[in-house]
């Protein structure tokens, strides 16, 4: 199907310096209209029985619940979510309605309530049935929605600092996570809520992270591969592979799709040094927002150029991503932290007047990261896997002396939160059911 006339690109090329109003005139034919329901004398709604338990008003169906209150459901939403077999495929759990033909002026011709079912016959002759339970789960009230969002969508994150870390840090046994779905769920919930957990008793083999990841879903691959070895590598292009102290940082701030969960399996540990350090930036960002709002504003709005340039297994890469140090979601809540000195590019594409204030804010943030009130330190032992939220926590490592009889050997791997959250939901559903 091809539209008549000259395309937009040609027009723009011809009218390179054309004022906006000229370009606007060329697009005027793209105005859309949709139909709405309008109550007319011919519109007839019959109430068959149990009149007081269900009625229709203001383009919504009202259904009384056990408390005598009315739950309200817009017609459009009800029609869109009809559960009959022409509208919904239960095996696929998918809506099959073809929206090309969806009529937004659809309205109920008649409706009734019988015990736990609400029946509607629509103006398009379609018939729908909804169970009370199904309706209650989806009621458009804050309490019900909050329950759904915090119990099914994503668990509420709980911030922590150094003072309460010991209560927050949970430990699990590797074999339990492999064999028990309940334990697997508990581990993943700890990660989702607190952002950190330790797994003990991991066999000293290189494939154990893969085995664990397969219990969740699958490993997130990056340009460093699926599993990466963290040990002294003199010819590397990545600082993490040297024995020097590793400043506080998040892994891969230069990826839009930054790895969500970091898993570090300790195979060998140094006798001195090599401690892991962590800060919960969910906690820190809330603290800054409250006590130093100007600093918070700078850190959450000025975009920084994060980068990684090098070569891994002879494959060249040049990753780049622009994002503030503290990223908020669409609701203004903490979403992600980016912090890294060696993966922060020298290019800084912000107005000149924003540069100095950003550096001052970065300095304050840095100080807060190393503040003993915020930062915790722990040393993993061989057989332990430290797992943490790489979107939320900042981590570091103290230096160590790497020699032939004092090595440090860690295997690392990542998971994506999309996959982890999906596993949490399935496990919760199955464990609740059983």
């Amino acid at each position: 199907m091809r539209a008549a006339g000259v395309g937009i690109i040609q027009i723009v090329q011809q009218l390179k310096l054309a004022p906006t109003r000229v370009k606007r005139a060329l697009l005027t034919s793209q105005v859309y209209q949709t139909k709405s329901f309008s109550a007319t004398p011919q519109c007839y709604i019959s109430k068959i029985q149990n009149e007081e338990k269900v009625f229709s008003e203001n383009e919504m169906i009202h259904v009384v619940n056990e408390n005598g209150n009315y739950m309200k459901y817009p017609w459009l939403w009800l029609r869109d979510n009809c559960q009959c077999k022409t509208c919904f495929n239960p095996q696929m759990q998918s809506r099959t309605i073809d929206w090309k033909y969806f009529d937004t002026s659809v309205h109920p011709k008649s409706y009734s309530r019988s015990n736990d079912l609400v029946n509607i016959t629509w103006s398009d002759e379609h018939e729908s049935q909804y169970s009370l339970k199904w309706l209650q789960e989806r009621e458009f009230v804050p309490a019900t929605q909050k329950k759904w969002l915090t119990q099914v969508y994503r668990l509420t994150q709980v911030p922590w600092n150094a003072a309460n870390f010991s209560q927050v840090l949970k430990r699990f046994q590797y074999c339990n996570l492999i064999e028990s779905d309940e334990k697997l769920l508990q581990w993943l919930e700890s990660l989702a809520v607190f952002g950190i957990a330790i797994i003990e008793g991991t066999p000293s083999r290189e494939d154990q992270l893969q085995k664990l990841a397969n219990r969740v879903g699958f490993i997130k691959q990056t340009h460093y591969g699926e599993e990466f070895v963290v040990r002294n590598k003199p010819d590397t292009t990545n600082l993490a592979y040297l024995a020097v102290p590793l400043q506080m940082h998040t892994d891969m701030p230069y990826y839009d799709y930054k790895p969500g969960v970091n898993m570090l399996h300790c195979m060998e540990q140094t006798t001195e040094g090599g401690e892991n350090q962590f800060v919960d930036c969910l906690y820190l960002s809330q603290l800054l927002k409250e006590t130093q709002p100007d600093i918070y504003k700078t850190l959450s709005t000025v975009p920084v150029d994060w980068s990684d340039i090098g070569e891994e297994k002879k494959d060249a890469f040049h990753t780049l991503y622009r994002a503030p140090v503290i990223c908020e979601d669409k609701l203004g809540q903490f979403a992600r932290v980016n912090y890294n000195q060696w993966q922060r590019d020298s290019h800084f594409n912000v107005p000149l007047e924003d540069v100095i204030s950003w550096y001052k804010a970065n300095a304050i943030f840095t100080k807060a990261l190393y503040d003993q009130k915020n930062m915790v330190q722990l040393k993993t032992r061989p057989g332990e896997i430290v797992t943490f939220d790489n979107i939320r926590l900042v981590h570091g490592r103290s230096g160590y002396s790497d020699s032939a009889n004092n090595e440090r050997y860690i295997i690392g791997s990542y998971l994506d939160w999309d996959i982890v959250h999906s596993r949490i939901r399935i496990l919760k559903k199955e464990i609740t059911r059983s």
Partner: protein
Amino acid sequence: MLVKCLHNGNISQPHSHKNNNDIKAKVSTIDEVIQVQSADGNVLKYPWIWLRDNCQCSSCFNPKLQSRTIDWRTFDISVNPKSLHINNNILSIEWSDGHCSEFTLKWLHERSFTKDNQEKWLNDVYRLPKIPWSAADFPSVLKKFDYSDVIQSDKCLYEWLKALAEYGVAIVENTPIQEDQLRKLANRVSFIKRTHYGEEFEVRNKPDTTNVAYLSTPLQMHADLPYYEYKPGVNLLHCLVQTTGEGGDNLLTDCLHVSKILKEFHPEVYKILSTTLVEWSDIGEERGMKFFSLYRSPAICEDRWGQFARVNYSQQQRYSHFSIPLEDVIPWYKAHATFTQALYDPKNMVQFKTKPGDILSFDNIRLAHGRTGYTDTKSNERHLIGAYLDWDIVYSRIRTLKRQLNLI
């Protein structure tokens, strides 16, 4: 010749140095920058603190790692320049902390804090600007590449990825009819993005499936996996067998283009679509593993600069749960109906059929796609192999190729 800066932080008279190339540099204490003035009178300003942070000497920067090695735990943000010197196009600075830095003028110029320069770098290096298209533009927008060229030539690989980045769609032709060819193409970029459907997925009639894409009915316009926060960036569909009869056509709409139209002519609709959180979902089982994916996001997502960033559109993967205030529900449905109309509008949507050997590649973050129905029988099958790439990986490859080809 070194000019000493009588600098104790209180000087109001900046000192300057002139070398035989008429390039001047001076310290300005008022705004804490160093000004570099070239012969044509252009003055470029660099904040001291940025210069000190980006010192290129061997204790501050590791050229092999291309990484800053400064330990910010001990970084002094009150550091200031004590003296400047320009010689042979190198600016040397002696700092108040005793440190010395050297910057080539070329390096400085590339990073100058002017709007034009920054825009150039962002467009040339960061991300190629996207060019929206309508149905009328499509014939001139759709570029085709030969599979063996893309496999063998880095220049051709770059051209293909460039077309994808700019227009969001391109076709790679003459792919051998073997199931592993898609992977071979993906490996030229880097690696396939895995989802809970695996790495490569087959698109053919699968009667017992939990995904409507695997049936022969028409596939409404949609974007793949809106229920992933980390939604697949590039969709690759390798046509192995195409229906000989009618149907099985691909449908595509550029939602970058549609979102601009809506923003201009239906601003209220645009506002609703770009703010109301919709719940996208996928529930089922694949290869013995159950999944329950869920993600809340508007139909049109903006980035932090208010620009189009992503489209989410799917009837079958849009959940019945809708966790928004009651009064926002009906307006959302009406906006959604307008959006649907726009997606199917022949002025916006294109239709074409790929042939065996074609790999249709498109931007799954930007385009909506669909498929007309077809009659799937023993003698009239349709068989495609699909795989995804992430944009992080594609952009990285574009940059390394550009450098290799001396385009940046």
